[in-house]
């Protein structure tokens, strides 16, 4: 029997309660391992029973869901929560994710019955406040970016990219054109080429110059009648502003193509630069990055897309419009919306995230948003300045809101970027983004965000300096065995991929398989 099977066999409902607990960090079985048939954590009235209108489609077998009481469920998830690092725990310096503070006022307001308990298909007259909120948020987004239009429905950043590329394809089709390729920098987030491919485009790479920005001359040489669009990020994923954006926009437009900006790094620019001034045609905004809506363990997000006038007619349905009588939803491709690409999801958009994002924006105001972007850039540069002598920044400063290091400082230590990051876990920090962007070796991308205190940054810097010194001193074993103090040591991802176990099965079933 493998070591893993033995360990699994050791977990039984009888002994698991005491096995492996470490103070407040308590081992917790799966829900399915705590079942008592018939037990229930919700008291509901008893059904009357009798004839039904199910047409003999009544389920005729058990489902297999476990029964737990409310206290058991609360303990279950409370114990699980103790095994999670979070923004509320400490610095979460993931580059390009913008792990900023999630204000609790936003949670309170999103749960007001007037926002949480309204049905998307209620008559317009009964949801004027909701429609006005969407319109207000749209106004803030357009004003911050200097763009005339915005598509609110996309459910996440990648969904916004899809919306943008679809709109561009529709605009080209309206001109009678069908172009085959989209240009994407090698440093781009994976969603960019994936989005382009989903829309049937071939993806062509654009190289960076020695300064880490798009090579303008190479770009101009590549542009031609078969290029539909360029997808850029600015600041780019190296934390550097694409300072030739206007020239790029001019060249792209001269070639009859469109300029899509991935807005993931907008946190450096809010209140200071309007991408619309620089000639972009479309940009998605990650409300869950720049505007503090919670990451929630991986989602939900929200990715509205600001659009130039040339793309506005193609925006996905529904549109929120205001006429003399008030606000209403345009849900069909008629009239002014006749050229819309159509629906890209159910209902109207991520309303719960709209409330949170607008509350964040109103809390900051024009002055606060500018102060926040400034502090974000200040914090990143302070990290750069404080670590430049012991690590290897990939590009000379100043950085914007995030700073990129590569693994040259670990050369000949036997310590990889991965090892270094796992050791950082034991220091009490979530690691920075690793191995992204792909254009430098062993990338470490650090984004502290604006919320971090100087004392907090100093603690992080001290931990990083300590680890860098330890790596260079030759203590590779220390790093290879990290983390030691987290709820789990390093996990076997190879076996997880070779022999995927993607759900719990009853032991009898599992043994049979």
């Amino acid at each position, binding site marked *: 029997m493998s070591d893993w099977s033995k360990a699994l066999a050791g977990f039984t409902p009888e002994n698991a309660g005491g096995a492996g607990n470490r103070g407040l960090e308590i081992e917790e079985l799966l829900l399915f391992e705590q079942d008592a048939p018939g037990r229930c954590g919700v008291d509901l009235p008893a059904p009357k029973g009798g004839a039904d209108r199910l047409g003999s489609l009544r389920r005729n077998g058990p489902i297999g869901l476990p029964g737990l009481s409310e206290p058991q469920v609360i303990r279950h998830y409370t114990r699980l929560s103790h095994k999670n690092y979070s923004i509320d725990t400490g610095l979460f310096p993931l580059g390009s994710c913008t792990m900023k503070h999630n204000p609790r006022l936003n949670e309170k307001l999103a749960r007001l019955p007037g926002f949480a308990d309204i049905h998307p298909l209620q008559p317009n007259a009964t949801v004027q406040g909701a429609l006005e909120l969407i319109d207000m948020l749209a106004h803030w987004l357009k004003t911050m970016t200097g763009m005339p239009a915005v598509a609110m429905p996309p459910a996440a950043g990648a969904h916004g990219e899809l919306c943008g590329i679809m709109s561009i394809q529709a605009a080209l089709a309206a001109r009678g054109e069908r172009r085959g390729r989209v240009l994407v920098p090698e440093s781009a987030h994976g969603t960019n080429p994936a989005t382009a491919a989903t829309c049937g485009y071939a993806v062509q790479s654009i190289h960076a110059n020695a300064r880490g920005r798009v090579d303008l001359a190479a770009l101009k040489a590549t542009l031609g009648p078969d290029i539909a669009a360029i997808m850029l990020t600015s600041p780019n994923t190296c934390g550097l502003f694409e300072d030739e954006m206007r020239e790029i926009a001019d060249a792209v437009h001269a070639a009859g193509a469109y300029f899509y900006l991935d807005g993931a790094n907008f946190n450096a620019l809010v209140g200071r630069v309007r991408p619309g001034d620089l000639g972009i045609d479309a940009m998605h905004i990650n409300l869950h990055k720049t505007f503090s809506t919670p990451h929630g363990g991986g989602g939900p997000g929200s990715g509205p897309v600001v659009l130039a006038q040339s793309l506005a007619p193609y925006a996905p349905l529904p549109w929120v419009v205001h006429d003399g009588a008030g606000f209403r939803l345009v849900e069909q491709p008629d009239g002014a919306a006749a050229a819309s690409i159509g629906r890209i999801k159910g209902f109207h958009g991520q309303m719960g995230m709209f409330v949170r994002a607008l509350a964040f924006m109103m809390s900051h105001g024009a002055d606060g948003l500018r102060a926040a972007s400034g502090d974000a850039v200040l914090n990143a540069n302070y990290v750069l300045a404080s670590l430049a002598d012991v690590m290897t920044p990939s590009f000379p400063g100043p950085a914007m809101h995030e700073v990129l290091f590569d693994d040259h400082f670990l050369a000949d230590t036997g310590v990889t970027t991965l090892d270094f990051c796992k050791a950082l876990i034991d220091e009490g920090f979530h690691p920075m983004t690793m*191995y992204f962007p792909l254009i430098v070796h062993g990338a470490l991308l650090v984004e502290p965000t604006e919320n971090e205190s100087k004392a907090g940054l100093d603690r992080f810097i001290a931990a990083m300096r300590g680890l860098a010194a330890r790596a260079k001193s030759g203590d590779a074993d220390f790093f290879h065995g990290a983390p030691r103090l987290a709820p789990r040591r390093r996990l076997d*991802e*190879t076996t997880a*991929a*070779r022999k995927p176990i993607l759900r719990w099965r009853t032991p009898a079933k599992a043994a049979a398989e």
Partner: protein
Amino acid sequence: MATMKYTDSHEWVRVDGDEATVGITDYAQTQLGDVVHVELPELGRRVDKGAEAAVVDSVKAASEVYAPLSGEVIAVNDALNDDPARVNSDAEGAGWFFKLRLANPAELDALLDPGAYRKLVEGLH
């Protein structure tokens, strides 16, 4: 008498008459890390030299395997479905991917012989 040849994208070919066995080199498997899954071509598929013929996944990466020569897929190594680790433990033997019936044996001339491939790999360090 079988001939071993290599590509500069780190595939090997063992040619015997008009049949060729293809896999990835030992150098390639060390670069990939633990192989977790292999996507093999369908039997009967015709591939052109240089076309994508298979995909090999490690935990954190997926790499295309290109057909070193043109031909028809006449066999695939099904054992890799249950045991992809063979690609790591015996890349140039039991870790083979597929066999081709060659369409154009003259294409062999453009491939690297073992000495040339060894030099290529040394140059990468």
